[in-house]
């Protein structure tokens, strides 16, 4: 059942209004400015939550703003998958806002108004992407996201940051151009862009054309999804402040790319058509290469945030692999991993930020013994890292289990082997830092350091706790796994 409601647009507009209020308030009244962020994040999340029951029972919310081309409106259409991503972004915004306030004030960062303004705009567009009812609306918010994340990459204004910003724009705008091309092509073929439950491209165009179009879409969205070899903007973007790396470059921005790919596979092409065209195996192979090489690159990093970035590259392709294998288990595992990866990775980034704030250290080789001085932070880090490896009872295990199962269901056990290899590699780069943190003695200025303030610690522990809960009781309602299964109807 579809209900026409303003809730979707509210969820998008609230962060935008918040951004304007932040800009108006400015540096003069910092507490009020931070209040807007917190208030809007809570309010936005509540609007999203209010859509839960209806969506969960299989309904949809729709809202139309204005017609753009005949047959295609700027409009929203909320289904379980969109709901899922919207909730993830808006909920993690609350957590990250709290963390941001602690982080930015502790480091006395400059241009904080611009920072909060762009952050709110990013969240608004991420929610917009999630709730979009057609490819055009998705693209509109996708591009707004590109532009509003760009000042955050450049935040430091050092030459490294400026270069990273240029690189980021060059990659993402080119990707956007490809998506636009694919979208124009799709519209020319079918006369519509509205997402349909089983796709709408079937029966249009030649097989050759559809295959080429698919490659264009994957390349276009693949830039943000950081598929190797389109990933290199992501490690460079780690010059951004840590909350940005945490929420945007581990969750919102990169998952927007993933989200686009999943939408194209399920709601534009339709699963059957993609399977008929024989496009899945190549996609799965690309994802596997990214999984393996992302982990190998991560092994070579000493900078903690860069290591996490390569880990993100690798983990994101789990989701693509899940979509490419196309068995019920792999799909639900992949979709659930969007949230699982988000919670675990955000924990890890928060830890990296807390360490930076307290000790000024960015490199793993300088963090020996940090576990003695910042035990709670490092416990959070350990939970996140173990989850990334896929150790039970943390939620990373759940997604990996379903993905592995799905690979077997799909009749491609080789991909289960890829997952196992990745697990080994993950262990290889996550265990040494944990070992060094707890089993080596702190030296130098680390001896003096201590735990960060609760503004930073609270979000770390909360996200770590949620990762644990999702891993221990995945069968209760409204967990990522359950939402994924609702969306997929399995």
């Amino acid at each position: 059942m579809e209900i026409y409601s303003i809730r979707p647009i509210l969820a998008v507009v609230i962060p935008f209004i918040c951004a304007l209020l932040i800009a108006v308030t400015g540096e003069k009244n910092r507490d009020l400015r931070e209040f807007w962020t917190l208030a809007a994040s809570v309010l936005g999340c509540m609007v999203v939550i209010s859509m839960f029951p209806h969506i969960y029972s299989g309904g949809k919310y729709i809202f139309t703003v204005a017609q753009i081309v005949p047959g295609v409106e700027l409009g929203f259409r909320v289904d379980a998958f969109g709901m899922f991503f919207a909730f993830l972004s808006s909920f993690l915004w609350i957590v990250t806002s709290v963390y941001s306030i602690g982080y930015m004030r502790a480091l006395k960062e400059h241009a904080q108004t611009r920072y909060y303004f762009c952050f709110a705009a990013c969240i608004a567009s991420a929610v917009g992407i999630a709730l979009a009812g057609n490819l055009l609306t998705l693209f509109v918010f996708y591009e707004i996201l590109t532009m509003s994340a760009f000042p955050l990459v450049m935040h430091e204004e050092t030459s490294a940051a400026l270069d990273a910003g240029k690189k980021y724009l060059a990659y993402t705008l080119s990707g956007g151009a490809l998506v636009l091309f694919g979208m124009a092509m799709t519209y020319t073929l079918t006369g519509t862009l509205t997402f349909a439950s089983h796709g709408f491209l079937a029966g249009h165009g030649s097989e050759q054309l559809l295959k080429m179009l698919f490659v264009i879409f994957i390349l276009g969205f693949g830039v943000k999804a950081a598929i190797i070899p389109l990933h290199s903007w992501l490690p460079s973007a780690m010059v951004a402040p840590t909350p940005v790396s945490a929420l945007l470059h581990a969750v919102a921005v990169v998952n927007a790319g993933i989200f686009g790919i999943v939408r194209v596979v399920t709601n534009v092409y339709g699963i059957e058509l993609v399977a008929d065209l024989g496009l899945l195996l190549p996609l799965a192979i690309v994802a596997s290469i990214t999984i393996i090489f992302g982990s190998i690159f991560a092994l070579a990093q000493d900078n903690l945030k860069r290591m996490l970035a390569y880990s993100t590259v690798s983990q994101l392709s789990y989701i693509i692999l899940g979509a490419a294998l196309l068995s019920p288990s792999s799909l639900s595992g992949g979709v659930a991993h969007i949230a699982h990866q988000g919670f675990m990775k955000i924990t890890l980034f928060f830890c990296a930020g807390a360490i930076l704030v307290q000790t000024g250290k960015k490199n793993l080789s300088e963090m020996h013994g940090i576990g003695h001085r910042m035990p709670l932070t490092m416990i959070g880090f350990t939970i996140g890292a173990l989850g990334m490896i896929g150790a039970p009872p943390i939620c990373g295990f759940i997604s990996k289990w379903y993905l592995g199962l799905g690979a077997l269901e799909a009749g491609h056990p080789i991909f289960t082997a890829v997952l196992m290899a990745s697990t080994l590699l993950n262990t290889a780069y996550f265990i040494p830092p944990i070992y060094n943190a707890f089993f080596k003695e702190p030296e130098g200025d680390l001896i003096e350091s201590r735990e960060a303030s609760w503004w930073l610690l609270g979000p770390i522990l909360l996200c770590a706790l949620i990762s644990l809960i999702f891993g221990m009781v995945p069968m209760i309602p409204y967990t990522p796994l359950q939402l994924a299964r609702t969306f997929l109807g399995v």
Partner: protein
Amino acid sequence: MTWASHLPIIVVLIPLLTAYITPMLGWMDKRICNPLVIVSTSFAFIASLLLARSVLTRGVISYHMGGFAPPFGIALVVDYFGAYMCIVISFLTLMAAIYSREYIAKELHESKTAPYYTLLMLMTGGMMGASVTGDLFNMFVFFEILSISSYALVAITGKKVAILASYKYLLLGAIGTSFTLVGIAYLYILTGTLNMADLSVRLASLYGVGRSSWTLLVALAFFMVGYSIKAALFPLHTWLPDAHSMAPSSISAVLSGILIKVGALALIRVLFNIFQPEFVVETIPVTSMISWMAAVAIIVGSLFAISQVDLKRMLAYSSVAHIGFIILGVGLATGYGTTGGILHIFNHAMAKGCLFLCAGAIIYKTGLRNIDDLAGLGNKMPFTMAAFTIAALSMIGIPPTAGFISKFYLGLGALETGTWSGWVFIGAILLGSLLTAIFYMRVINNIYFKEPLHREDVQRDETPLGMLIPILILAGGCVIFGIFPRIPLSLAEPAAKLLLGI
């Protein structure tokens, strides 16, 4: 006959009559000029809106001057496209007029106030006339009016470089007008008429008939070259960067925002109103030829813009690229493509108008023209720079700005052709917008992310309100018409369909 039926002549007469009154009143008191121009342009704008409404309700309006029926009398023919152009012209001129009050007081010597407004109104009258005329010779006359007044406006500051730029513009412009005059002569020899509707009927019988068809082709070639110079279509754009960067910024906004589009309008009139779409699309593939030229213009114009150091010169080269987008849409001669091209006339007018007005505001406040010197302006002039950023995003074609809509329509139009060249064109459109991103993002980076040279420069020092208001209106328009594109499309779409006869 009610007064409303005289609207076609009213929209032309308001600016022309104002042009005659201005020097007289300005002679008595210079301060009257600006309010007078603002009021009369507002009336012209309202009249254009009413004209558009009556075109939308009643269809194409044919107005006979003095009641003499064509082909003997002079006819004004207002179709959707003409009404659309009138709105764009009067709207942007109004913005420039509001902006001029404070800008001109500083930029120009006091003695030039009255000539400035006189020329501005004369130019507007010429543009309005060219949009609504149904007679080829009248088109030529209006083009002379608007060209000559624009030559003078480019040189009005009296600086040597400006005079030189104006001279270059004048030389090429004169070549353009003489080419069109020769074209008109050829058509008159062939048919004995200059009325556009009449011409199209009489020419239809001549397509492919022995010798006379050569005369026809030569006439077409003369028109193409002549009006391509006026529209600054690559490679006939060489006058534009000098003229548009040396003129006062309010004039640059009008020149880049609408004047070159009137050249595009003339091209459209020749291609689709005088010659039949079937003739120029299929028999002699002129449209495909200009599409290729336009695709080259998009790429080359953007590449030139990337290499500029002067902000206004960069904006001028960007116009060379964007006239390419418009002409490409026209040349595609498909429903979406031509709609996109016509829509881009409006979208580009808003964005480029806004950008030139912002550039003027920067010069007004700081005297800076060099892109590398703009560091720190984001804190100094936050509203102006926010408007600049929005307009720049519209030029790049980032949603939800208006530029995205026209880019999308042009892309759809390119694919609609269904040929391999359509793929090349959409490639040019996308590559062009990426190149556009390179040079606009460079400016935005300097404004917001670069360390300013002098710390004391970053004190808040916003543009005066009189100049800021038109800037903000134009920037707001870029967003509003990006979210609600149906508003301009309600005219642009029927305009394209009528021109193409589909």
